[in-house]
């Protein structure tokens, strides 16, 4: 089903689909709702694009000394040449303290020189007060936002190579503040630098903050990642996309992937975030069904809300109801399903298993990680039984489950989580040189564990 909200203007295209519409009268059915959005192409020329009010927050803790900080500074200086005169740039660094090197400087010729002069002397110092640094960067951007007399894209890019170890560190609180700032028009994207940063802290800020998370393992990747993020910020045509599902009583939702989900008594809100021009974003929602009476129907009402950076307005669309009908167990088993849709579900499901299990593994909850991946793999195997193209992924998951009993090394864990995060969001990995696949990381880890 396609619902165009405003055919005369550049609107996102939405589709809502369910893998099977019959549900078991005895209860226990699991169905997958696939919400898809394709962001419209950029409606205006670059000349007329809203200016950017950008905040760069740079980790200057001791571990960034040498090539990482040099690369971050070089990337910032190179960025100055890529931004037009009507953009504003703030630069904040953090370690044990927070320093605002440039506060919403307009990037005309004098402004560029001023920012360059402020960034060049930046040196490393102390611990990782990431939260305070990020708040400092948001403040610089928010002050400009409050003073601006025209619409601008307010965006913060946070670069860090470590775990926040001063100030607020709890992922749920970081997500809360990021979401509140997003609702107030300040978005945040994050860049993890090196091999030992905290993927969870940076991920929750980016997800709840309506931006994207990137990895720049090598210093020479920092510039290309920053440019890619800048390009994404400038070409985003759908911001703060949120789906709302109104669910019948007894229907329980769960998201595949890491997309934030908030439930209430009547349904749930799903934050899909920003989508760049022409890109497609999918969200797969797993729905556990209650028992019922043959012939009765359950209706799931779906709506969407988003912001359009081009006109700075909020938009909403009713995407209509999805009907499910109770039937006998035999009829449910016999009903056909769309293979392409099932394959989409399987890809997201696999990414979900990798990500969730690895998160548990990194939290040290090895037993739960094994149990989760084994249980999910069993159901996944059954779901993919008639999908020959997904059999390799089933084998990979079978190999993955036992490795969850021991702690992964930081690089492998980070890569597995990052890949599954990118897969679940349909985002591109902008890093220049090729890494292993998730399957290769798992295999290497299995071999390492066997040797020990």
């Amino acid at each position, binding site marked *: 089903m396609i619902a165009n909200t405003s055919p005369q203007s550049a609107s996102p295209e939405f589709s809502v689909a369910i893998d099977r519409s019959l549900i078991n009268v005895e209860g226990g059915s699991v169905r997958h709702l696939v919400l898809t959005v394709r962001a419209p192409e950029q409606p205006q020329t670059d000349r007329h694009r809203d200016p950017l009010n950008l905040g760069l927050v740079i980790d*200057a803790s001791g571990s960034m000394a040498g090539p990482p900080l040099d690369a971050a500074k070089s990337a910032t200086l190179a960025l100055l040449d890529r931004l037009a005169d009507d953009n504003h740039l703030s630069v904040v*660094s*953090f370690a*044990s*303290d*927070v*320093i*605002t*090197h440039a*506060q919403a400087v307009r990037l005309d010729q004098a402004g560029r020189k001023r920012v360059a002069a*402020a960034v060049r*002397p*930046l*040196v490393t*110092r102390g611990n990782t*007060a990431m939260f*305070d640094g990020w*708040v*400092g960067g*948001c*403040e610089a*951007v*928010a*002050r400009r*936002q*409050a003073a*601006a007399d025209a619409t601008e894209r*307010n965006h913060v890019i946070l670069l860090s190579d470590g775990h926040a170890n*001063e*100030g*607020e560190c709890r992922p749920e609180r970081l997500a809360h*503040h990021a979401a*509140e*700032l997003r*609702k*107030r*028009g*300040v978005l945040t994207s994050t860049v993890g630098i090196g091999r030992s940063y905290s993927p969870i802290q940076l991920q929750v800020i980016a997800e709840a903050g309506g931006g994207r998370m990137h990895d720049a393992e090598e210093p020479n990747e920092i510039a290309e990642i920053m440019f890619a993020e800048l390009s994404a910020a400038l070409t985003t045509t759908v911001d703060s996309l*949120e789906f*709302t599902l*109104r669910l019948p*009583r007894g229907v329980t939702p769960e998201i595949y992937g890491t997309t934030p989900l908030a439930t*209430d*008594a*009547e349904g749930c*809100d799903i934050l899909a975030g920003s989508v760049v021009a022409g890109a497609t974003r999918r969200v797969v929602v797993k729905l556990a069904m209650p028992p019922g009476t043959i012939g009765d129907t359950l209706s799931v009402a779906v*709506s*969407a*809300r988003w912001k359009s950076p081009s006109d*700075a*307005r*909020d938009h*909403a*669309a*009713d995407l209509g109801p999805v009907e499910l009908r109770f039937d006998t167990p035999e009829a449910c088993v016999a009903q056909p399903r769309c293979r392409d849709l099932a394959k989409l579900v399987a890809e997201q499901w696999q990414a979900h298993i990798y990500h969730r299990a690895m998160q548990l593994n990194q939290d040290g909850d090895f037993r739960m990680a094994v149990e989760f991946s084994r249980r999910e793999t069993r159901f996944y195997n059954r779901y993919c039984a008639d999908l020959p193209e997904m059999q390799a992924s089933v084998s990979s998951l079978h190999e993955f489950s036992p490795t969850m009993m021991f702690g992964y090394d930081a690089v492998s864990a980070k890569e597995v989580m990052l890949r599954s995060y990118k897969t679940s969001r349909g985002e591109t990995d902008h890093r220049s040189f090729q890494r292993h696949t998730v399957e290769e990381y798992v295999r290497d880890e299995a071999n390492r564990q066997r040797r020990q």
Partner: protein
Amino acid sequence: MSGVETESEIFTIQELSDATGVEPRTIRSYVEKGLIPGPDSLGRGAKYPRESLDRLKVLQLLRDANRGLTLDQIRLLLKRLGPSELRGLADGRLRIAALLDAAQPTSDTPSRSAAVDYLRTLRAEVPARLSTTPHHNYAWQDSLPVLEEAARALARLSGLTSASRGVRGEPWYRLPLTPDIELSVRGNFAPEELAQLHRIGDALRLLLTKGPRA
């Protein structure tokens, strides 16, 4: 609505449910989320005020309007309604669409200062933690008066009237003052002299980060 509620203006949760079609568990969740006023007591016989019924009706109308409003946005809309407006909407005398259209700019588009206000509140809530991480702004225009004051103070202390240049071949001694400023002194220093240099460095650091003492 009068200040004293009569028996006919208080309701059990089941009566609220019957009047609106909203399930009791959903009503309880609305109370928990602050969307409607809670009962005056606990237990099965708990009574809800008339305002709970009115708010519940308006809340349902807002959800049925299918504008994709989140519960947070509905809470903000309900909060702005006065008693007569609330009653009018609940009774159907006022149109819910008019309320939504009138509220569109404020309910959907936060003001430009909303993020600044949020961050200000955040700083106020956690002053102890954030104040341990000083927030400096090293724009050179800001630092210059402090540096001039420091130079004057040091000149007064030392009786120095003109700067003498160091002698080539002597080593540099470097004292980091702030992340951006370093004091470099050339010469061979005895330990006592070095201790004094450190004291000067400490004083300069204080002047640069805190400003001159009032």
